């Protein structure tokens, strides 16, 4: 087992853990956004969908445990890497024109990640918690568009839109970066990876944003 621990604690091993958990979290986003888009089909469709999920609770709960582990792993590892990297650079330059040699999104992964984490905590504490407390009665749609923690609350709506923009920036760097870390940097597959990356960093955040924009800002669903 020592070879395994050596790998996990090596710089490249830690990067690979970041990449694997990151890609798995990206896959979760697909499932999540599809569920959200059901809101556009109206209250009945959305409530039926959420109740259908409730009927397979053991499966949902086990997947939630895996998901939580992925999040914790990704965040813990990210914090660990950030601390180590700070230690490796004890003195900063008086002048550093980083913008001339790298993209802002690649240099702010810790910042965007931390802000997304804050959003995640508020998200779990509000909509997710209310969904757990709700049993039947078809109130799920109402929770989402309510003025309390739903999209009729302008602050919640704006925070949600902002958080999804941050998610887009995080994945702008994160998605393609994961493949470089796996060692899949090849002129043949680069266009494919960049193409799929657009789906994750642009299309998915926009799809998430479409809901607060429609229900919150444009007054849809009322």
């Amino acid at each position, binding site marked *: 087992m020592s070879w395994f621990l050596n790998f996990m604690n090596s*710089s490249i091993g830690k*990067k690979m853990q970041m990449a694997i958990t990151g890609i798995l979290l990206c896959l979760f986003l697909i499932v999540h956004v599809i569920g959200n888009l059901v809101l556009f089909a109206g209250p009945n469709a959305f409530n039926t969908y959420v109740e259908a999920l409730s009927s397979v609770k053991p499966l949902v709960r086990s997947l939630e445990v895996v998901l939580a582990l992925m999040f914790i792993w990704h965040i813990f590892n990210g914090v660990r890497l950030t601390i180590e*990297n700070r230690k*490796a650079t004890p003195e900063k*330059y008086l*002048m550093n024109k980083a913008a001339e040699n790298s993209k802002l999104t690649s240099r702010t992964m810790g910042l965007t990640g931390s802000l997304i984490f804050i959003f995640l905590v508020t998200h779990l504490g509000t909509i997710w918690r209310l969904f757990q407390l709700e049993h039947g009665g078809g109130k799920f749609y109402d929770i989402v568009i309510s003025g309390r923690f739903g999209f009729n609350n302008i602050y919640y709506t704006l925070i949600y839109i902002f958080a999804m923009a941050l998610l887009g920036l995080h994945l702008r760097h994160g998605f393609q970066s994961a493949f*470089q870390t796996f060692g899949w*940097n090849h002129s043949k597959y680069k266009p494919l990876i960049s193409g799929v990356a657009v789906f994750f960093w642009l299309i998915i955040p926009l799809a998430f944003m479409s809901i607060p924009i429609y229900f919150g800002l444009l007054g849809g669903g009322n």
Partner: protein
Amino acid sequence: MNVTLKVWRQSNSQSKGFFSIYNVSDVSEEMSFFEMLDMLNESLVEKGEEPIAFDHDCREGICGTCGVFINGRAHGPISGITTCQLHMRRFNNGDTIIIEPWRAKAFPVIKDLVVDRTSLDRVMMSGGYVSVNTGGTPDANAIPISKVNADEAMDAASCIGCGACVATCKNSSAMLFVSAKVSQYALLPQGMIEKKIRAQNMVDSMDEEGFGNCSNTYACEAECPKEISVSHIARMNREFFKASIS
């Protein structure tokens, strides 16, 4: 032309450094950056002051000895060159030029702009060689090597170990340097035999030296005077992974 220099001065590795300001006049735009520093140093010596220490050797961009951070960029504002290849015509009359040593925990300052890069030497000692018996010099073309591999190995081998990749990386990661060395051998028949153990040992050594972790900003590729590609980092990641699991 006249320029104002803001230069990092530090008398030894233990002492605290500071920025000193020097006004240098009558600088010719044909001068190299180092010739301008030489001129300043001569005037400092005449005045009985300590000249500015900076690393340099070949002054033709091939040895990898020189390297300072100039106005926020490793090797200065022009991409694809070492500091010694930078000329004063790249600056304007009246410019203030900030000159700093490479900053990284693994590159402690020895004096002024000179840093200790022996950490890179120790990484090389851990695997940057071929130790199998390859016999005498074979006839030309006796060992078939594809043009693609030969070119890629040569691109990797053009690394001069100047440390700009580490200096510019926000994490002080040495991944571009180490991966160039891993690649240069892994692509050729003589080096291929030990590619797994080499990747393992060189990455272990890199981690021990206190370099940071790569976060794929690709600043290293942008600042490398030899324009070495980050695709070599991807190759090292593959080799290290394969070496770890088998």
